[in-house]
């Protein structure tokens, strides 16, 4: 049996308690870095393996599937795992300086432990084939997240963490109820088993309730309009390095759960189509795109602006899924990857330059173009990627998104998508004008270290690379959606 899936989980899970024993900040950082790097390598080889030879099913403790817990590494999991582990590694490297200055000395090693546990939670959610297990991992990642968010050194940070805790818990409770109902109806928790048994089960009222609860729970996780309020507050008050990390991972995990539950577990009854949920989600995400873009244009605080922009981009992703066509799924998966890279890069620049600022206003960027020419060129590339100009990955996303919409029954919503995509230009250009045309004010931006700058350059380079060579994003996404829509041997 291939041991790779379980190694991905075990490695950080083993290291975290060891770090607790040592209580050494430096050691904790180095070990987390090492573990993240190893994890990335493991996941790349896992992806390679799965791409070549197909799914890996791993029975934990060799207990057979419906009774024991099974890990399932298919292309979808590996795609999200790759994204998550890469983001984690980049943010660890780029954020080290911030962690040292923002987090109290006594807490730094705890911070890294929580980081690793959060990683375990995310990987667990992605890898598990057991729906209750998914809930457990969701809780692990959430608990770690609360700690991470509360470490911001603003007064509002604890408040943001508590809000995140409350809203996250409400979401989790919905998911837990939904799982409970499923279990009562089918008598199993294994996802493959569930998806087989749901065929035979007539769609009862309780099953509908379960679906509705899943939708709300996942909607909170993915910040689906109108459940997006927590995201903006969290992104504004959490330690900025955590924001960079979460912008590429946490909400994308929500997208993963949505895909797994609605397209895989409920595969045979296709609830999105059956209950006309797709139309509802389409409608909500359209409003979400419009409103959050408008809000983003109005913001003068950069982190808030980027947060609203994230809500808008997530809405694009959800919208593409709700089209319920293979092209739509491909588009959304491509955008998941591209958007994570771009948005993490943007947040990282804000993080790196303004370590001590509570609010980063647009004015703080005045004249940075001449101060940090190279870093700002990378920032510019990322911003152009956000607009979706050709030769950046954002363009690829936009191409497939618009293409998918025009090919679907809802071709008219492309108007909203195109106009909001144009409106992205409004807030992006505010920043660009400040950077290149304003005279430098007396600001206290901190000088980025070489490793930090390299991280940003890397992300900018990837944005360009993924805009030219799309076999990683489009190739795999296309494969995944083909599997979902045309292949029944799951």
């Amino acid at each position, binding site marked *: 049996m291939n041991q790779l899936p379980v190694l991905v989980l075990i490695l950080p899970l083993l290291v975290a308690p060891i770090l607790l024993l040592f209580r050494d900040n430096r050691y904790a950082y180095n070990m987390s870095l090492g573990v993240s790097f190893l994890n990335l390598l493991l996941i790349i080889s896992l992806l390679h393996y799965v791409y070549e030879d197909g799914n890996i099913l791993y029975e934990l403790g060799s207990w057979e599937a419906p009774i024991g817990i099974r890990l399932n590494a298919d292309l979808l999991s590996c795609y999200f795992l790759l994204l998550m582990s890469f983001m984690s590694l980049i943010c660890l490297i780029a954020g080290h300086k911030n962690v040292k200055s923002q987090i109290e000395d006594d807490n730094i090693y705890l911070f890294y432990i929580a980081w690793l546990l959060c990683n375990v939670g995310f990987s667990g959610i992605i890898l598990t084939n057991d729906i209750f297990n998914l809930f457990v991992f969701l809780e692990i990642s959430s608990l770690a997240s609360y700690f991470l968010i509360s470490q911001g050194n603003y007064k509002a940070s604890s408040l943001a963490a508590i809000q995140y805790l409350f809203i996250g818990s409400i979401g989790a409770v919905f998911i837990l109820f939904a799982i409970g109902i499923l279990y009562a109806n089918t008598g199993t928790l294994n996802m493959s088993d569930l998806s087989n048994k749901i065929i035979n089960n007539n769609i009862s009222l309780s099953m509908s309730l379960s679906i509705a609860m899943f939708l709300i729970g996942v909607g909170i996780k993915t910040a689906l309009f109108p459940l997006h309020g927590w995201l903006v507050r969290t992104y504004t008050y959490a330690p900025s390095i955590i924001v960079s990390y979460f912008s590429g991972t946490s909400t994308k995990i929500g997208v993963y759960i949505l895909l797994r539950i609605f397209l895989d577990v409920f595969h045979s009854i296709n609830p999105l189509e059956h209950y006309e949920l797709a139309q509802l989600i389409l409608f909500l995400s359209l409003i979400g795109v419009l409103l959050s873009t408008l809000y983003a244009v109005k913001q003068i605080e950069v982190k808030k602006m980027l947060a609203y922009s994230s809500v808008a981009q997530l809405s694009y992703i959800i919208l593409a899924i709700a089209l319920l066509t293979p092209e739509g799924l491909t588009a959304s998966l491509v955008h998941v990857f591209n958007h994570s890279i771009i948005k993490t890069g943007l947040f990282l620049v804000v993080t790196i330059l303004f370590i001590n600022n509570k609010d980063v206003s647009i004015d703080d960027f005045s004249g940075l173009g001449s101060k940090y020419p190279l870093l700002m060129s990378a920032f510019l590339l990322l911003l152009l990627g956000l607009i979706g100009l*050709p030769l950046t990955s954002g363009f690829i996303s936009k*191409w497939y998104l618009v293409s998918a919409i*025009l090919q679907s029954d809802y071709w008219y919503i492309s108007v909203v998508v*195109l106009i909001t995509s*144009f409106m992205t*230009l409004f807030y992006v*250009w505010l920043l660009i004008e400040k950077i290149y*045309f304003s005279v430098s004010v007396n600001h206290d931006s901190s000088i980025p270290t070489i490793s930090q700058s390299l991280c940003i350059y890397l992300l900018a380079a990837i944005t360009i690379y993924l805009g030219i060579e*799309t076999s990683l994003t489009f190739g795999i996404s296309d494969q995944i959606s083909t599997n979902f829509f045309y292949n029944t041997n799951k």
Partner: protein
Amino acid sequence: MNILASHILFLSLGIFIINFLRKEKFIGLVSVLISLVSLTYVLYIVNMQDSLINQKIDLINIIPGIPLSFSLDHLSLIFLVISNSLWLMVSIFSEKYLELNKYENKSKFYIFFTLSMLATNGIIYSSNLLTTFIFYELLTIATYPLVTFKGDHKSIVNGKKYLYYLLGTSIIFFLPAIILTHITAGTLDYKIGGVFTNYNNTTIYILVILFLFGIAKSAVMPFHKWLPSAMVAPTPVSALLHAVAVVKSGVFILLKVMLFIFGIDALTTSGANIIIILFASFTIIASSIIALSKDNIKLRLAYSTIGQLSYIVLATAILAPYSILAAILHLIFHALGKIILFLSAGIIATQTGIKNVSEMNNLSSKLPITCLLMSIGAIIMIGLPPTIGFISKWYLLLGIVESEKLYLLFVIILSTLLNASYYFPMIYKAYFEKEKFSYKGSSCENIILAFPVILIGFIAVFIFFKTDFIVKFITEQII
């Protein structure tokens, strides 16, 4: 290695060279050299055309089935020669112009100027709509720093308008047009006769509107406002980019879309070309009326450009062989005439500080050569014999008669009258009105500044006697 790709590669290399030498004093000379090499490339390509025409070269596969790819056809060849030879002239002009006007940060100017020309050449070489779109957007981005080059409040505001108009229309109209074409036709390659095999009229109508509005670089109303905004840029930019490279790229793409994406058949059977004719006719008249009201020389020229571009669009949309010939001829002739006018305006502003038509009294005594050149340019624009402007107008009239859309004669006649009434006052004032006050600054001709303009003037006159050669080339190879 493919010559087209290596031309583009050379231009990118040129940008690095300029960036590398940015501190040096002779940076302007380097830029002249780069444009000279670029012209050499073009002449070599013209020389080798038989072996290059319709040879497709795929570079990278951006979207499966739609690579970034280059090829060459006869229409591209014409635009290629025009833009690159005028680039050489303008780069000689800009070297002196930037020095006399004491601009700082010259290297930034040259970098983005070269990048703009790279993008223009990319548009010319592109063999499918995706490649065109990529270079189209690159051209917008590359010209933005030039429009805002002065860095003052006015240029930033105008630059923003420029960017919002061009990027906005390309995102909202052009991109979906391309994607819709890809979905309906299954290909984006330019093909003689068009790519649509079975189509319904609604799709064609929607696509025509999307393309017409999306390619806002052709400045067809209502999306024309970016062009007057762009006039805050230094004169060489207005002259080469906003009278030739950028706007002609727009018209060039529109021409290619009409001929090689829709195809004449699809447009005439569906009747969708009427939409283009209506918008273009309206633009021709409206822009001329606005131009009348503008006192600023550059703004008047800008509105004149908007009208002249729509001539080309109109001539193409009539879809008669003569009118298409007129469109291509006008693409060349307007470029020559308008660049003379803009460069003259630049000389006038540099040497005397005059920026408005109302101040031009008796200017010919101070700048005799410039005023003569300006008059030639103006007469070309009006389309009077014996200048090249007359020839394209002549074929346009023939095309209109041929296609039996006689009401368009009225548009042409009215706009010619309007053109005359905003160009003649400039000539009249410069030669015949007494000066009201003495000018500040030196008032003699600067020979280096005037040299490229004189050269273009000679070419414009020379071409008048060689028109039959160009007409023959176009009728044999393109139509």
